[in-house]
């Protein structure tokens, strides 16, 4: 009987959908990495990766509609800050999915990172990003605000590292077939990290500072 009158103020459904989107991203990244490292045939996972991308886009649209309905129904009682934050988070997660699909596109174009002198380094970066998606999902789901302050500086360090790699390959004298895919790869994983970092800011930063992390400006800053 209580559940009949459950108030939906807490936007529980949207939170669940966002966590589901992050899990979808995790799977997409796994598929893309499998294709790039040739543990799977890129063509064999094409249908699944496109289906997951569509699912992400559909969920993003659903979230927008649900937020709008929430605002219309609850009127002045609505937590507009939270609604705006969720709009932003949904866009970030959708962009992570896009970059995962773009990584798969590289594999589909014939890029193969399973051989080459930097194979193990690339493999390690893939492991880091995969782990970051999982950890971000958990931190967001459980609203672990303190963890955000530890994670974001680390992500920023990684982003710098990926940027340096990208610049290095852009300026490299290596053949284009070697340097170009790597420059693009580092750009993509940098963007994935940046969008996950943006998402995490929704847990600790005021709405006007979403995507612009600064510990001293965080809501929980002393």
């Amino acid at each position: 009987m209580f559940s009949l009158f459950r108030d939906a103020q807490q936007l529980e459904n949207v939170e669940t959908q966002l966590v589901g989107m992050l899990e979808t991203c995790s799977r997409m990244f796994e598929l893309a990495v499998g294709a790039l490292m040739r543990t799977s045939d890129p063509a064999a996972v094409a249908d699944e990766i496109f289906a997951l991308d569509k699912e992400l886009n559909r969920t993003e649209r659903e979230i927008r509609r649900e937020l709008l309905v929430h605002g219309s129904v609850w009127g002045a009682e609505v937590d507009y800050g939270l609604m705006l934050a969720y709009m932003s988070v949904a866009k970030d997660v959708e962009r992570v999915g896009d970059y995962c699909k773009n990584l798969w596109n590289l594999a589909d174009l014939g890029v193969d990172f399973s051989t080459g002198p930097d194979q193990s380094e690339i493999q390690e970066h893939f492991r880091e990003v995969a782990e970051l998606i999982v950890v971000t999902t958990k931190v967001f789901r459980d609203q672990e605000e303190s963890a955000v302050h530890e994670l974001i500086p680390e992500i920023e360090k990684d982003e710098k590292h990926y940027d340096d790699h990208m610049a290095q390959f852009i300026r490299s004298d290596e053949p284009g077939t070697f340097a170009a895919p790597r420059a693009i790869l580092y750009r993509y994983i940098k963007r994935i990290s940046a969008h996950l970092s943006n998402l995490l800011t929704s847990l600790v930063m005021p709405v006007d500072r979403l995507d612009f992390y600064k510990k001293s400006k965080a809501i929980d800053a002393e």
Partner: protein
Amino acid sequence: MGDHRPRDQVAPDPTPPLSHVGTWARLLLTVLFLYVFLVGIKALERGIGSLGAGFVDDLFATVAHPLAALAAGVLATVLVQSSSVTTSTIVGLVGAGVLGIETAVPMVMGANIGTTITGTLAALGHVRQNAFFRRAFAAATVHDYFNILAVIVLFPLEVAFGAVSRIAVELASLFDGLLPGVSDDPGPVKRAIETPVDAITGIFESLGWERAAGSILIGLGVVLIFLSLWQITTQMRWVVSGQIEAAINRILGKGAGAGAMLVGLVLTVAVQSSSITTSMLVPLAAAGVLTLSTVYPVALGANVGTTITALLASVAADNPDALVVAIAHTTFNLLGILIFYPIPMLRRIPVAIAEWTAEVGARRRGLIAVYIIGMFFVVPIVILFIT
């Protein structure tokens, strides 16, 4: 990449433990205000009854013509921004025996038109952005036009043949002996409603203020009706907002049709206000997530749902005609749906006019004011004067 493991886990924020207590308290408040509402109807009925036939005849002589009654219904509802207040007051007046069915039914039809102004005014909030405004105004005015068209068709039939009231009389006869308003035995509900009104009347009589008692009871009745309907709507909106949200999300997935109509009906019965239901749809239509073809049936469902208030008010009335008028309100709205909704060509008429109005309004903003003032003020006032 470093170790991303977070520090100590923070447990998810649980639902506030007192939120359900709030729900039950609000439900109890709703029941209490429903009782206050019925007491208000009874006070109004008693107050008017005590003023004497001559005074009452003079008061309602101006609306004796059906067209004047229709215009009065529009104006009264526009002024109080609630068809529930107007129709329940009409039911109270019929209950007091001062308003006949032949006058009350056109008034109720007018209330149906007047109530749409709230949605139309809500659409003005989107006037800054053309595309948003066009969609919002079309969503609001489709309700206006449907109700106007229903009146254009059914009002002459009612005046000429009593088309709506005859059906209502037949339907009301099914309740003979079952409801307090149409039963010889007042029953516990009616006794509970009469007790406070009897007590107030008794106080005035003991003070020797019999002449003032009528006017004071009328004033008290109107205040109680306003206050209680406002509170019922406020409390129920709080209680069922989650369900409203879920229902709108469902119709967004499934689109137009009988389901959307049912959603409009149930939501409006729950919050006792068609204005709340339709006003909630306007921003969604403005944003483009609800199409006009989905808003339209929800508004029609709201039309039927809002008639619950008059039906409830008839519980407090002594005169069985009060129930007839309340049922006539429901019948009128159902007939409107049966005439215009099943046949696609007819169903399209209010939509086409609303789209055209919105298009014109988006291009020439001044005409919006002309539409609102003309439709809801000038036309009814002119009708009142000529009749």
